[in-house]
């Protein structure tokens, strides 16, 4: 009695459940790998830009570089770019109020920040859903299979363990697949949520510090 025979021997609803679980497992693993790549890349770019920024480079130079390499720029670079663009645009206007200038700069940066965060957090909700729902889906398949196996048992005169065992084994496979899909998804979700949070804190603090620097330039 191999695993494959258990799967092929299961009833159609249970097989359907297994198929759904397998698909969600595949997609969640796809997102897991994708997120790993994206987050690692973002972290690297952020560290690189922070190093450049705090090494005392000219802000105009940094801005120029960010505009030129817009396609491959990291999240933090984009935030910097949008803030500096807004700042320089408003600064040239005569008789501008400092508080209003800083407000609009900060708003521009916040907008870019939120867009970037949304990109980083995308598909995390899918992982959360798979992690919390697929055990239940697997359980549904198992309950269905056990119901069927007990119903078949009613037709047999003397019920022995050997009558029930194959049906239950078939049914339990569904729960196994559900857990198999859920566990990595939950682990990955927690890990990624933490990573994204740490990036968000870095972006936030950079925004504040950059605002201070710009405000000092106005005076």
């Amino acid at each position, binding site marked *: *009695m*191999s*695993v*494959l025979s258990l799967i092929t021997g299961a009833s159609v609803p249970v097989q359907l459940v297994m198929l759904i679980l*397998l698909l969600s*497992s*595949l*997609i969640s*693993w*796809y*997102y*897991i*790998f*994708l997120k790993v*790549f*994206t987050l690692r*890349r973002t972290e690297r770019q952020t560290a690189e830009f922070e190093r450049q920024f705090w090494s005392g480079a000219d802000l105009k130079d940094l801005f120029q570089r960010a505009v030129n390499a817009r*396609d*491959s720029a990291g999240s933090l670079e984009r935030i910097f770019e949008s803030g500096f663009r807004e700042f320089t645009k408003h600064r040239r206007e005569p008789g501008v109020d400092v508080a209003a200038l800083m407000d609009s700069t900060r708003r521009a940066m916040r907008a870019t920040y939120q867009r970037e965060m949304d990109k980083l957090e995308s598909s995390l909700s899918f992982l959360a859903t798979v992690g919390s729902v697929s055990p239940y889906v697997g359980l549904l398949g198992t309950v269905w299979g056990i119901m069927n196996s007990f119903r078949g048992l009613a037709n*047999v*005169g*003397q019920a*022995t363990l*050997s*009558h029930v065992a194959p049906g239950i084994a078939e049914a339990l496979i569904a729960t196994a697949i559900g857990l*198999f899909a859920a566990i990595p998804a939950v682990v990955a979700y927690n890990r990624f949520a933490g990573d994204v949070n740490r990036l968000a804190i870095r972006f936030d603090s950079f925004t504040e510090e950059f605002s201070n620097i710009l405000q000092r330039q106005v005076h």
Partner: protein
Amino acid sequence: MTAAAINSREQALAGGLAFAMHVLFLILLVFGVSWQHQQINTAVVVDLWRDLPVAPPRAEAPPPPPAVKPEPPPPAPKVEVKPPPKPEPAPAARPDIALKEKQDKERKLKAQAAVDAKLRTAEKAREEAVEKKKRAEADALKTKQLADAEAKRAVAEQEKMRAAEAAQRAAAQQREIDKYMDGIRTKVKRFVLVPPSLQGNPEADFVVTLLPGGEVLDVRLGKSSGNAAYDAAIESAIRKAQPFSVPAGDPFQQYFRRFTMAFRPVQ
């Protein structure tokens, strides 16, 4: 490299990795579970012995009896037949011819006696030698016969032991075969769905032909139980229960290639 290119490359990589992950897990699952299955099959082989088996007799021929070399008969003592002593030169003629004659006769007799005695001792020695030789030969024959008997007894004993051993081995093999048969019967019984219409406890015989891996090649009804539904149930159960665990090699060819098995709803 542009962001779009990086993105598409990462997506492809992630897709491939996810797929590989699942293939790996599937392989692990299949092999892991079948490994456990194998483990269970081999774990129940237990032999119970009431007492220790007799140590098998050494397959060694008993040492050959010490060869008794018949001693070569001692060489017959040389019998030197000494020529009769030279007749003394005739004494000076004496008048007493009668005396002389008498003396002559006596001397002759004496010489004759000496020769006779010598001959007798020689004869005796020869006879003794022959006797000795005969005795030695008889001794040799006796020891040889003894050794022969000993060897024969040893051979007989060995044969007996070998026969006992063979019987023991046959019994062990029979036990082994019974064990496999029981395993097959138990496995089949697990799949039999006894039809509710069955009355009593009828017996159905099936002739089963197996492949060396334990797969069922052919199932034929030998003796019907009288209930066609029960017959069909057993037949489908045999087909469903395959593969059976069977011994490999010669015992399989001898006992499991094709065998008849009787089934009853209640054993």
